[in-house]
Structures are given as structure tokens and as C-alpha cells.
């Protein structure tokens, strides 16, 4: 009985690991930019690829973040091109 439970627990753990690995792989490659206005590196172009120059001063987002969920940005969603 315990052995079956052990196997089931192993399976649950492996599925969770696979799921996490898959989600981690979806994290985009950072695209860095240093706007002349701020002089500090930011990664807005990782998501806002369509914008010529995006900076946190204009977008109010988080210059380090790489995902929509973690970048509360006033520019709004711009799907990567």
C-alpha cells in the first residue's frame, strides 16, 4: 500500500517538476536598452518590441521585469513580435 503511495507521490512530483520546467522555458530572453533619458538599463523591449524607445519614466512599469504579470506598466500589453 505504502509502495503504491510512494510511486504515486513520485509521479505527482515529476509532473509538477515538468510543469514548472515548461513554464520556466517560456520566460523570454531579456532585451536590454539604456535610454538616454534615464541612463539606466531596462528591459521593456522584451515585451514592448513594437515601440521604438520605451522607458519606465513614460510607461511607469518595472524596468527589470520580463513578464506581463510582474510589470504593472501603463503602456499596456504589447505582444512580442
Amino acid at each position, binding site marked *: 500500500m*505504502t509502495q503504491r503511495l510512494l510511486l504515486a*507521490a513520485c509521479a505527482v*512530483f515529476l509532473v*509538477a517538476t515538468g510543469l514548472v520546467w515548461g513554464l520556466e522555458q517560456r520566460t523570454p530572453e531579456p532585451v536590454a536598452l539604456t535610454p538616454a533619458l534615464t541612463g539606466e538599463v531596462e528591459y521593456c523591449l522584451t515585451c514592448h518590441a513594437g515601440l521604438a524607445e520605451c522607458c519606465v519614466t513614460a510607461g511607469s512599469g518595472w524596468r527589470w521585469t*520580463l513578464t506581463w504579470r*510582474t510589470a504593472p506598466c501603463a503602456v499596456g500589453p504589447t505582444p512580442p513580435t
Partner: protein
Amino acid sequence: MQARWRYTLGAGGTAVFLVLVLIVTGALEMFFYIPTPAEAALSIQTISYLVPFGGLLRNLHYWAGQLLLVVSAVHLLRVVFTGAYARPRRLNYLLGLALFLFIILLDFTGYILRWDQGIQWALVVGTNLVKTIPGIGGFLYQMLVGGAQPGAATLIRFYTWHIFGLMLLAALLTIWHAFRVRRDGGIAVPPPKQRASSERISRFELLRREVIAMLLTGAGLLLLSTLFPAPIAPAITEITSLAGETHAPWFFLWVQQLLKWGDPFLLGVLVPVLVLVLLALIPYIFPRPADHELGRWFPRSNRLAQVVLAVVTLLVILFILLALGPVLP
């Protein structure tokens, strides 16, 4: 057969597993974390967003810390609600309670290490509470903060307490606690003649059950860490202001609620200390559970201790909910 999950809830083993997760993830975070006011929040953003698997690493550390606190509280409740604190386990009960306190302090110091606007309220209010202690408050504040107000000295002190001072003491206490479990005869059970069953599980079976608990906890931890990222906020710009979130970490929300009702020393320091003293005195002031009732939940012979702990627990939960009131939608 008292090693059943429905009796122990697997809380002790799960807590040890979470401690191991915390040590490994914390050690890896140390390669990137910079404990200075100018760099701390930025280094956490670097870990979260730029280091490969850094976000997962930080989230695992965060959630393991929160779960450890919950699991330890469940462990404490289980011990009192089963009467397992009585002689010869009184010393081990106190060791466990001290460990619980250390876990709270480790969670709080770790929370402060973010050094972003999310922790500002807890940092300023928490350290100012120390000042209110009559006689030694000023001295303790200086020891804790390292100056007239929180700054670089404070951060390095919290960092050192988190990764060295508290960790070392907690590790020593954990080893002593585990050693005492064996020394005191394992899990609390009735004397041999009063046991309903003399059946005992083998070490291998116990290990199997612990591994199952670890695998399921690990799976839950991975999913939590992926779906619910650890809190993060913009770096602190002005330490004395109370910009950003104006609430304590969830495990101190009950103290925050108490502070709204009166004197900071009385309600913010004395009441929590009295709660701790009351918990520490449980094995000494309440009747010893009857031998034949050991090894089961809610023995009649220690009802009073159960009621006292239940009331304290419910009040703490109620105050947390009251403090969350304005935050909840």
C-alpha cells in the same frame, strides 16, 4: 502505530524538509544578493528576473519560509491537542517552542532583507516598538538598528542575523529537538500495558512515509512558487517615510491590529511576550494528561490546555483577519 499521519500530520518531518529547502535555496540566493540599501532591492530584482531559474529559486525560498511557519504552528497545535508535551517531554516542548520563535524571527529578518517599499512599514514600526520597552528600549534599538534610524547598518545586521546568528541557533536547536524525540522514547504513547496495539512500524516504513510527505510537499511547493510569485516592490527611496504597503508581514498582522487599539508597549510588546510565556507554561501549569489517553487527539484529561490554546489561536486568526479587512476586496 502512533506514527500514523492522522495522528502526527507528518508536521515534524515536513518541517525538516522545508528547512533543507530553505538552506539550499538561501545559499544559492547569497551568490547574487547584495546587502546594501542601494543594491538590495535591485539585486532581488536581478535574482527574480535575470538569473536563470532565479525567480523560481526566490519563490521556493519564500514559500518554504511561509509553509515552515504554518507547519510549525500545526506541529505545536498537534502536540498540545494530543497532550504530547507532558513529562518526560517538557524540555523538548520548550525546545520546539523556542524553534517556533526562531522561525518567526527568521521569516521577519528575511522579509526585511527585501529592503523595498513593501517592507518599510514593518521595518519602521517594528524597530520603533523595541524603543518602547522601559529602561532598555533605547539600548536594544541601537543594538538592532545600529544607528538613530534604519540604514546600511540595520540591513547588514538583519542579514547577519538571518544567514548566521538565527540560522546557527535554529540549526543547533533542531538537532537537540530531534535528539530529544529519540531520548524521550519517540512519539508519545501509553505505557506498554495500556496500549490497544503493540504493533510498531519499521524504520523503513517510517522512512517511506516521510519520503511520500516530502515528495508531495515538494510538488506543492514547486506549484505554489510558479503560480504565486513572492512579493516584490520598488526600492526604498526615503527610509523614514511610510510609502508603499502599510502593513506587517502576515504573521505579525495580529500585532499590527493590536497596535491600533492602544499603547504600543502594552499591546505590541507585552501581549505577544505574555502569549509566548503562556505557551511555555502549558506543560507546567495544566494537569498532566492521563497515560492511557496518550497517542490520541483531544484527550479528556488535558481539556483545559486545549481550550486555552484554541482560544489563543482563534484570537490570533481573528486579529489577522481584522487587520486584513481594509486590504481584502
